[in-house]
């Protein structure tokens, strides 16, 4: 029998409730959490948001953290959800088990950085908050707070981050690399990404209307959700109540555009197809779909097309619950996973709020229904750059009746390696990339793409089976440029080209777009350990036969300002630019 993965505890905090019970009430009563900004310090009051109805001080009090401690809202949200999940899962101590924390996030400590940025630029003095700017340190702080985790890591694939955290958790459990995984994601609102999304002109000034013909964009939300995952046999052994099975998952890359989804939704289609295959289910087994459904004209059209390609005329009930929570970006995958579990447990279909007008030829979402038995549900989460992930949650185990696909253990070898550590080397990108494609790329993108293309050339492949990227700080140059723009011009339209290349996963997705690679694509960001995590994932893919060639890269850059600040804080010095690209193969 295959090793089944179960979920035995959930924690959730979002605009519609500070815990699972409140979330359930809001969902059943059709009560949206989207409204006027209360906590975020932004001038954009015309933009509705899905804020968590707690101040940072209130969250600290709930967590027993001193009010004077400076800690990002993002980390606090994550801690609240992890705390609930651990309590519900009955895990208060490690008791000899290997417990692993996997978090998905993109903003990291940006909410604190943006508060201190002006003062740092004005005085030239570093604020220690910079040491907590990166995503990995948020996860690290959560792990330290609970003190039961033997390892932790962070995935950053923009809006599919949390879904990929769950996917990784399941794989690590199956591979026997952990006994219990607490996986999920968190994202707090920041001025940085609110203004960034605003400059992409995809924010609706009204509460969002996913899948409606008149939809005019998304509303940003915030929150966190984490789940306790373990092998079914272990859960039964310790007498834990099983809330759901994570029976399938798929990760694919649209490889189309940095911010737009392809017309036929190729990445979404491939991710859903793979999720069904790993679950050993057919489209007919799916009783409900929690769509990504952001409410942007592009996403909803593309996702609708992908859904039709999978389900044809026999479309199960579909809804987007972003009309309740807003788009909680990196956290959306786990928040919606918990919503799916609640729907299965309490036998109802969550409503697609505010839907009124049919998209011609598009899907018709459900407006909610009670008394529905849900056996298997599909939960989609898609990110910028086309990092698309689909999960399948089940209220009963899938009886596949087969032995596990016992692929012989393949040994992964590093077939080639290329390193770039100076800006002068970047001019060579001209030999590989047309000026029209290179024109937007900042240093880190050029360095990442150049090192990747050179290493692929060495082993003679034009498209790897999978792309795994590691970065400790991501696209710092663009992030700093946007923060400078906010400082100098105020909350105006930020430069869209810089914003779309400020997420960590923009690196891996640019390589996928260039090479046309639709395969597995994730980005790790866990400080200096990022590369080791990426390599571990690559070896697992090759060992299990899921990929024969994997492109792994670690890419980082720094700016003169950031570098001098980090030196003041005695942090490890960074190269202005540094890329390591490797090809791992099974040696055939």
């Amino acid at each position, binding site marked *: 029998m295959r090793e089944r993965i179960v979920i035995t505890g959930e924690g959730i905090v979002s605009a519609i409730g500070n815990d699972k019970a409140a979330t359930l009430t809001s969902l059943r009563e059709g009560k949206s959490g989207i409204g006027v900004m209360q906590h975020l310090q932004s001038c954009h009051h015309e933009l509705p948001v899905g804020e968590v109805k707690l101040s940072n001080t209130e969250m600290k009090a709930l967590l027993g953290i001193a009010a004077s401690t400076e800690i990002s809202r993002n980390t606090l949200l994550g801690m609240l959800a992890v705390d609930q999940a651990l309590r519900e899962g009955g895990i208060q101590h490690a008791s000899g088990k290997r417990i692993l924390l996997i978090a998905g996030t993109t903003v990291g400590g940006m909410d604190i950085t943006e508060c201190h940025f002006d003062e740092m630029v004005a005085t030239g003095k570093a604020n220690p908050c910079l040491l907590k700017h990166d995503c990995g340190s948020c996860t690290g702080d959560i792990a330290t707070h609970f003190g039961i985790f033997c390892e932790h890591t962070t995935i950053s694939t923009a809006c599919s981050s949390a879904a990929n955290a769950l996917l990784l958790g399941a794989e690590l459990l199956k591979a026997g690399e952990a006994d219990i995984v607490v996986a999920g994601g968190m994202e707090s609102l920041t001025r940085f990404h609110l203004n960034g999304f605003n400059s992409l002109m995809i924010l609706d000034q009204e509460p969002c209307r996913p899948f409606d013909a008149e939809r005019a964009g998304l509303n940003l939300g915030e929150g966190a959700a984490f789940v306790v995952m373990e092998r079914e046999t272990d859960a039964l052994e310790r007498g834990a109540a099983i809330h759901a099975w994570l029976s399938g998952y798929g990760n694919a890359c649209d490889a189309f555009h940095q911010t737009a989804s392809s017309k036929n939704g190729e990445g979404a289609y491939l991710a859903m197809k793979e999720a069904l295959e790993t679950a050993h289910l057919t489209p007919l087994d799916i009783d409900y779909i929690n769509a990504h459904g952001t409410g942007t004209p592009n996403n909803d059209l593309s996702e609708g097309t992908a859904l039709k390609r999978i389900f044809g005329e026999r479309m199960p009930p579909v809804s987007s619950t972003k009309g309740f929570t807003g788009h909680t970006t990196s956290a959306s995958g786990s928040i919606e996973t918990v919503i799916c579990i609640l729907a299965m447990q309490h036998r109802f279909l969550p409503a697609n709020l505010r839907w009124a007008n049919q998209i011609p030829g598009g899907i018709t979402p459900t407006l909610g229904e009670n008394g529905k038995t849900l056996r298997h549900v599909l939960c989609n989460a898609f990110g910028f750059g086309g990092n698309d992930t689909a999960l399948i949650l089940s209220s009963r185990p899938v009886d596949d009746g087969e032995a596990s696909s016992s692929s012989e253990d393949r040994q992964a070898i590093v077939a080639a390696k290329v390193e770039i550590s100076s800006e002068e080397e970047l001019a060579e990108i001209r030999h590989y990339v047309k000026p029209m494609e*290179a024109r*937007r790329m900042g240093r880190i993108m050029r360095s990442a793409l150049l090192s990747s293309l050179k290493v692929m050339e060495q082993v003679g492949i034009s498209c790897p089976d999978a792309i795994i990227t590691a970065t400790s700080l991501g696209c710092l140059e663009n992030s700093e440029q946007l923060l400078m723009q906010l400082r100098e011009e105020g909350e105006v339209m930020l430069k*869209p*080209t810089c914003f779309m290349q400020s997420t960590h996963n923009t690196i891996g997705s640019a390589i996928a777009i260039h090479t046309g690679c639709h395969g597995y694509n994730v980005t790790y960001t866990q400080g200096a350990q990022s590369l080791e995590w990426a390599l571990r994932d690559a070896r697992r893919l090759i060992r299990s036969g899921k990929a024969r060639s994997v492109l792994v890269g670690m890419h980082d850059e720094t700016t003169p300002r950031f570098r001098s600040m980090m030196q003041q804080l005695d942090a490890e010095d960074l190269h202005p630019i540094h890329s390591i690209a490797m090809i791992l193969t099974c040696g055939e």
Partner: protein
Amino acid sequence: MEELILELKEQIIKVLNLEEMTPEDIDTEAPLFGEDGLGLDSIDTLELIMLIEKNYGIKLASPAEGKTIFKSVATLADYVSKNRKK
């Protein structure tokens, strides 16, 4: 008008980082978007919206409005000359 056209071409080259191009390389009448023209995409539309807001005080409510305006440098120059606030 010729002056405005040249000015717009220079600004387009700058904001879109068309590094190796000069104003002479951009055909005034040719489509800016799509494969048979300059090959710009949706992010460029946003950059152009920012450009006309910053330099000419023209505000567009949605990228869809830009579709006809940004068809070519000629249509853009025509729209800017009629609607500019600065």
